[in-house]
């Protein structure tokens, strides 16, 4: 609350100074960003310049037109005894104010067209990454180029306590993920965007990239960042409950760093492979299952399996999770989802081991003491 009071004070004092004086002191007020960030791609900087130029043109026209209006409002007042003139048309001026704006528009259209054509040229990429939008996380799949075969999910890393105001918010509140997308600097990265459930949009302002991810279709876009650093974006198409909580983080690194990152990922992938034939003990399965549950299921079904009444069903005490005869149905709904609802088909997202352990967890956590065990082999058979 202390922080918010300080912010409140700064807001009121700023309001007192007047909004327009903020324009003058924008460097002092770090929070008061007044224009786009300068993008770190060549095409992005062109779009940025375009925005500034068009805004300037608009401002000039605005000042001219409303300058005339302001003069009229002062000089042609009835209270000053001004008598109304009786003109109501003038062909010359009417043609002029149709033609001149048209010419200005053509002048704006030329650079706009050029920039757009460049933006759409996704040919000859160095690396191609498939981006999949899930409710509510991003999946990255390196399809081609250095790092081919790497795939991972990228989820919000901000703790729930910060969101619910129980802990101090960190500097990167809401803009941090567990696994950022990593790409090399000065390389053309082609993004293939798609989605698993509803429409999402993958957007990073610093690259001037925003592309809807439409389920069942693949759309592409690209960027070539020329400055190393960490860049942030957010899902930019309303995708349900946690739309606000699926940020995008991209780390642009040097070619050498990228190579070592790729090696590291490959090693990690090799050591992380679960033995699909392993038979899990209850304790082990419950521990692993809880982790999977918190990452994949808790945002809808709740950390304690209570769900959200009316919107997302509870698992604690649900027929599917509690009754022994419904074990197969439980596996089926996790693997294949429930069409027409937000329940996704996790078969495509999670490994057999993850699915087996999370179902075991759901069938034994809270009040669901079924004692049922589900093994990776069961999942493999059910796929």
């Amino acid at each position, binding site marked *: 609350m202390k922080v918010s009071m300080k*912010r409140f004070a*700064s*807001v009121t004092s*700023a*309001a007192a100074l007047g909004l327009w004086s903020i324009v003058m002191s924008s460097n002092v007020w*770090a*929070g*008061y*960003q*007044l224009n*786009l960030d300068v993008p770190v791609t060549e*095409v992005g900087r*062109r*779009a940025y310049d*375009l*925005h500034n130029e*068009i805004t300037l043109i*608009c401002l000039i026209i*605005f000042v001219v037109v*409303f300058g005339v*209006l302001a003069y*009229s*409002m002062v000089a042609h*007042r*009835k209270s000053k005894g001004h008598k*109304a*003139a009786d003109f*109501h*048309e*003038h062909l010359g*001026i009417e043609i002029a*104010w149709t033609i001149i704006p048209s010419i200005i*528009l053509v002048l*704006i*259209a030329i650079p*706009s067209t050029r920039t757009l*054509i460049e*933006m759409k040229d996704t040919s000859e990429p160095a690396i191609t990454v498939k981006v999949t939008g899930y409710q509510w996380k991003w999946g990255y799949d390196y399809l081609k180029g250095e790092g081919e075969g790497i795939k991972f999910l990228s989820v919000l890393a901000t703790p729930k306590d910060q969101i619910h*105001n129980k802990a101090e918010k960190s500097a990167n509140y809401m803009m941090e993920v567990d696994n950022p997308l990593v790409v090399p600097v000065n390389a053309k990265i082609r993004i293939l965007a798609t989605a698993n*459930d509803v*429409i999402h*949009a993958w957007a990073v302002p610093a690259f*001037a990239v925003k*592309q809807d991810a*439409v*389920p*069942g*279709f693949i*759309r592409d876009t690209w960027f070539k960042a020329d400055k190393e650093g960490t860049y*942030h*974006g957010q*899902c*930019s*198409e*309303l995708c349900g*409950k946690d*739309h*606000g909580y699926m940020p995008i983080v991209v780390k642009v690194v040097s070619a050498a760093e990228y190579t070592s990152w790729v090696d590291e990922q490959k090693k990690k992938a090799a050591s992380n492979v679960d033995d699909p034939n392993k038979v899990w003990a209850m304790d082990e399965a419950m521990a692993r299952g809880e982790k999977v549950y918190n990452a994949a299921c808790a945002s809808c079904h709740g950390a304690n399996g209570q769900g*959200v009444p009316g919107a997302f069903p509870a698992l604690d005490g649900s027929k599917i999770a509690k009754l022994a005869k419904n074990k197969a149905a439980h596996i089926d709904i996790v693997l294949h989802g429930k069409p*027409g609802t937000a329940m996704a088909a996790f078969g495509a997202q999670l490994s057999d081991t993850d699915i087996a352990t999370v179902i075991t967890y759901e069938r034994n956590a809270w009040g669901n003491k079924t004692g049922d065990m589900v093994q990776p082999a069961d999942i493999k058979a059910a796929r």
Partner: protein
Amino acid sequence: MAHDHAIGGHAGHDEHEHHGPPSGIMRWITTTNHKDIGSMYLWFSFIMFLVGGAMALVIRAELFQPGLQIVSPDFFNQMITLHALIMVFGAIMPAFVGFSNWMIPLQIGCADMAFARMNNWSFWILPVASGLLILSMFVPGGAAGTGWTLYPPLSIQMGMGMDFAIFGIHLLGMSSIMGGINIITTILNMRAPGMTLMKMPMFCWTWLITAFLLIASMPVLAGAVTMLLTDRHFGTTFFNAAGGGDPVLFQHIFWFFGHPEVYIIALPAFGVISQVIPAFSRKPIFGYASMVYAIAAIAIISFFVWAHHMYVTGIPLTGQLYFMYATMIIAVPTGVKVFNWVATMWRGSLSFETPMLFAIGFLFLFTLGGFSGLVLAITAVDILLQETYYVIAHFHYVMVAGALFSAYAGAYYWLPKWTGYMYDETLGKWHFWLSLIFFNMTFFVQHFLGLAGMPRRVPDYALQFTEFNMISSIGAFGLGVSQLLFLYIVLKARKGGKKVDAQVWDGAQGLEWTVPSPAPYHTFETPPVFEGGKH
């Protein structure tokens, strides 16, 4: 014009049965009188404006600080959806239909609307439809949390609140189409002798064209939501790729309705402004003919620009280029209108009563909204700004500063004609200045939020956006509270005040100023002879 008489005959018939309005609640339920129906539209729209406004305040209260404080993300999404649907379909559109009901018969000199009984239906469908929308908050799962754009597949996932919204939209569409047919028939057939189309008041022109837009675009929306309904319940897959459909198809259909919808709201607003500015400039409107052509041009072009709402969906380069050029063209006729209004004021004899203040406020802020629209039209720039707060700022400049300010200009302009009493001018000016200041405090800063990258439709945001969000929220509460002042002013003017005569404003032109104030229950039972305006 014997034909006119036949259509207007109903009102003549009424006269023999009763000489004044019947009393009690049944007067309002059964009324076919255009003035009663106009008043009901206006009161209804104001109530919905307060309901939608309260929802906006829930949104702004949650966004006052980062983090979740007041509502859950789920409820937040329901609020943004209902706020938009109620404001667009429950507040702004009915407000201008209310003006049209009251003023079109008075302006063209006829006794009532052409289809008086259908007019009653057009109104009474509205409370039912809005009731469905509001009720949807209380069904299991709550209201649709999809935003007013209702994009599938998200809208397929929703609970039964979505079905309530779909049926509500069906009903609203029926109401609008009936209203549109009524207005077109009235204007084309029932004008006073001597009033040719090109001598009609500009407000009637804007409504004539708007009515065509309504009839052409509302069925498209009805089709889109019906396809949603069958996708949800009857196994069709119009919008599901797995069944051979395409989610983006919905967006094309929706915006084919959605863009003309913008002008359904904006054109009557232009009409009101075109009445008010000449009256307080004491000078005929500049370029009447070019004004009419500009309105018609805007209306026609509005059907060919829909995909500028969809630049980031992945439409091909040629599509993006076409929609960019087509959208830029709209700036030309819109510019013509602004220049005409400025030229009307130029060398007039200006006075600044409340209607004129709101009209000038409209001119100023609507132009700003037009400029941000031009910025958004440029595809390469829009990629940076699409789905950010810049878009929110843009369309609130057009919808609030455009439509709402114009509705206030019209309300203050015609209120003395309706009540017979002058409203409180000092309070009216307070209402204007408070609205102007708080409106800009709320929405101007949202341009900066959008430029800095804050997405729209999020209940929470990164710390860098805090300051502007606080300013915006404070402004929103100020703006909301200021509107209660208007309610007080209207109630006060109904009760009494300085009596006004038929010609309320010395510079006002038109047949509505030839009938007494307050306008009697029945007017123009025999058509007046129109002497011809100054056009």
